[in-house]
């Protein structure tokens, strides 16, 4: 049976969230954070759907109350309503399952007993729950707003930990509990495409953001889009690829959000337009962020590539060429926001402004750990494979070969992490040496404003950091511009307006005078009397 011990996710999430919570000690929201941790525990330890749901909901509301300390009211409303919407869909699925199984214990669930329509209905409801939590496009507004308005530390938890709950739910429900069920394959097909469309749209939206955490929020949505896509294949290697990517993404987002938390602590600024040129003020943070974005972009030499590789080969194996093309497109587009992130904060020119603060030392620990793990995973890409295979093996899928930790095997080829790292290292050192020995001597400019600027001497108040606006040109590209509009927000706003109008109509009934009430009651009586006879 599916068990807590078997879930990498659980270990990972606990370990990492504790790391983030560490800097929070002696703060007021610590209790709520611990409650959140408890809810994760309930979620992972659950042996019945009711318990699972308790964990799920507790996670929702405890995070809501943590969020409440910093977010705007509209954001909070959006957060809780979307989360509850997903949770109620889950509850609906649970109730439906109960209707057929008569029990909510995992061990009593036998999906082969479900009639197809019920299986599909359950699948749809679960999709809603998973999609809302993962922020599938159209249901993503709450993600972005909450990530950007949470306290910097809590954004890290939201993105690194909580965003994976949807994936966990999917794995538990579909791959463990309902795998015998006869779900309509079309549903998974739709899910796969939704995932990839989400990742593309979110990637472009990420590129056009001006706020660090909004960018990263969209990036999270995009990354989870891949995972959704790959999970929809319902295959063993896809499961492993998804889990590997979950692991990597958790590490990356922890690193990046903590990095941004540090930057916010140092500068008190959130927007790229107000930042820039931090590299020589915080070189360590810069390096950590670079590690993060290289991994995020999925380039070799850092762990990010491993999971991308697995995802691609899994899709290749299933011969899903177009799906893979779309995934790779979105993945390649991610370079742009990765660069925007590092440029907007660390590179470019530093705007003239007030003093800098000191970043708390405790923020460095999670970053350093994540970065070290990402490097280690690049060197030994097969390291977590055995760990990841556990669920797959329990489900009867063949595990990936991890006899040589340096080599990540897949059905479509393999690569040697050590060789990549080694070759790069040698080339890098050799070229650096060459550059050092070259006849030409490097002279460092004294004033960062001594740049080639059309023969001009820029003043300190000249805006030289307008590169933060990169991505604006996407609005001019006819294929991309429509993706950048806020369709879903308009849709939900309109829906809420309709509800509000309907509500006004109904609530006007409740201000009737006593005479009218009695008259209505009399009318009802007469009508029923006539109708009933």
């Amino acid at each position, binding site marked *: 049976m599916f068990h807590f011990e078997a879930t990498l996710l659980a270990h990972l999430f606990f370990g990492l969230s504790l790391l983030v919570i560490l800097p929070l000690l002696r703060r007021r929201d610590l209790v709520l954070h611990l409650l959140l941790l408890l809810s994760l525990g309930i979620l992972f330890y659950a042996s019945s759907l009711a318990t699972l749901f308790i964990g799920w909901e507790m996670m929702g509301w405890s995070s809501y109350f943590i969020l409440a300390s910093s977010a705007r009211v509209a954001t909070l409303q959006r957060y809780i309503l979307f989360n509850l919407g997903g949770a109620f869909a889950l509850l609906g699925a649970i109730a439906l399952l109960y209707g057929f199984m008569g029990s909510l214990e995992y061990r009593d669930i036998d999906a082969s007993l479900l009639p197809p329509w019920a299986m599909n209905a359950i699948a749809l409801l679960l999709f809603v729950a998973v999609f809302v939590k993962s922020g599938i496009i159209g249901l993503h507004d709450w993600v972005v707003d909450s990530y950007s308005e949470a306290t910097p530390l809590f954004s890290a938890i939201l993105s690194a930990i909580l965003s994976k709950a949807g994936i966990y739910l999917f794995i538990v429900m579909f791959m463990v509990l309902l795998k015998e069920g006869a779900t309509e394959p079309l549903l998974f097909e739709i899910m796969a495409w939704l995932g990839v469309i989400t990742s593309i749209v979110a990637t472009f939206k990420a590129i056009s953001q001006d706020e660090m955490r909004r960018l990263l929020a969209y990036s999270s949505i995009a990354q989870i889009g891949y995972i959704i896509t790959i999970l929809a294949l319902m295959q063993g290697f896809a499961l492993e690829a998804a889990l590997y990517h979950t692991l990597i993404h958790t590490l990356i987002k922890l690193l990046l959000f903590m990095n941004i938390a540090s930057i916010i602590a140092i500068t008190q600024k959130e927007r790229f337009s107000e930042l820039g040129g931090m590299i020589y003020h915080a070189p360590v943070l810069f390096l950590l962020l670079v590690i993060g974005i290289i991994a995020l972009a999925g380039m070799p030499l850092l762990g990010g590539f491993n999971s991308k590789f697995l995802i691609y080969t899994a899709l290749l194996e299933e011969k899903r060429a177009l799906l893979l093309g779309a995934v790779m497109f979105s993945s390649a587009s991610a370079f742009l926001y990765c660069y925007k992130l590092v440029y907007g904060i660390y590179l470019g020119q530093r705007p003239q402004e007030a003093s800098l603060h000191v970043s708390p030392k405790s923020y460095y620990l999670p970053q350093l750990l994540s970065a070290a793990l990402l490097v280690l995973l690049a060197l030994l890409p097969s390291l977590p494979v055995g760990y990841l295979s556990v669920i797959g093996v329990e489900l009867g899928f063949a595990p990936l070969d991890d006899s040589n930790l340096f080599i990540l095997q897949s059905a479509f080829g393999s690569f040697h992490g050590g060789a990549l790292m080694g070759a790069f290292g040698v*080339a890098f050192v050799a*070229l650096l040496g060459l550059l050092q020995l070259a*006849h030409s001597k490097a002279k460092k400019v004294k004033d960062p404003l001594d740049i080639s600027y059309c023969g001009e001497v820029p003043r300190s108040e000249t805006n030289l950091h307008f590169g933060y606006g990169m991505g604006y040109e996407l609005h001019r590209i006819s294929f991309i511009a429509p993706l950048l509009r806020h369709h879903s927000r308009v849709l939900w706003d309109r829906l809420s307006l309709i509800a509000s109008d309907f509500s006004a109509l109904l609530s006007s009934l409740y201000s009737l005078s006593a005479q009218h009430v009695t008259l209505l009651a009399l009318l009802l009586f007469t009508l029923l009397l006539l109708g009933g006879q």
Partner: protein
Amino acid sequence: MLLLDLLLMLLIAYGFGFLYYGLYRNLSARVHGRFGPSLAQSFSDSIKLFVKEESTTFGWMFYLGPVIMASGAVLNVLFIPFLNQGESLQGLSSYGNLIVVLYLMVLGPLGNALGVGSSGNPFGVMGVTRGLTRLLALELPFYLAAIGVMIDAGSADFGIIMQAQSTQSNMFAHPLLFAAAFISFLGFMGKSPFDVVGAPQEVYSGPATEFSGKFLALLMSQSAMFSFAKLLLMVNLFWGGADHLGELVAKTFVLFVAATFIGSVYARFSTVQSVEFLIRIPTLLGIVGLALL
């Protein structure tokens, strides 16, 4: 032995890279009705830059940017096999595969972009932005073609991909995929009409604006090697690779000349235009090609 092999590969890539670059300047001069510089001109340029007395740097990241970029190019050369058979000139290709190489191709530009960004020059970043935006659309058709090739061969391994073409090269087996990849390849080569990145009329030299002396020299050298790596990639993916060095030179030369002539006669696309063109024509070709697979 392996080490010698690797060095040889790098030397070949370096030599032929510069030779082709010189050739490019010559050929396009002929197209323009000029004589153009000598074949070794680009090589001379890079040596001259190496021996300039000073180069300006803006800090350590600026210093490391070109190094990372050049390392990326070196890695690309090393991870793509030169020949489709035998032990020699295979480099590290058995340690990687096509997917690795596709991603390694972006490593260099990213390193460079970091260096450019740290100079604080807005023109540099504008160039980088243009490059990355163009990259969005540039990679899509190439990826589609590569996916087709990989699915066709049943592996991402270069050896197997080349072996699968022993009877019929992919260019003829999947002409649409080849067309898609070729248009992308033109863009990757940075030639017209896809050379908006460093348009000197608008953004100085784009990413290279602040690079001087040895940094520029390193960038030129890596660009030569990188171009050769891209030629290799196309030859391996669509022309079945090469049996021996002579064939390799011949095939890369043909490909190179084709790219040069096309580049010489087309005017430059703006960033938006190039993205729209790349998404319209080659991507569609690629999708149809995949559908026909």
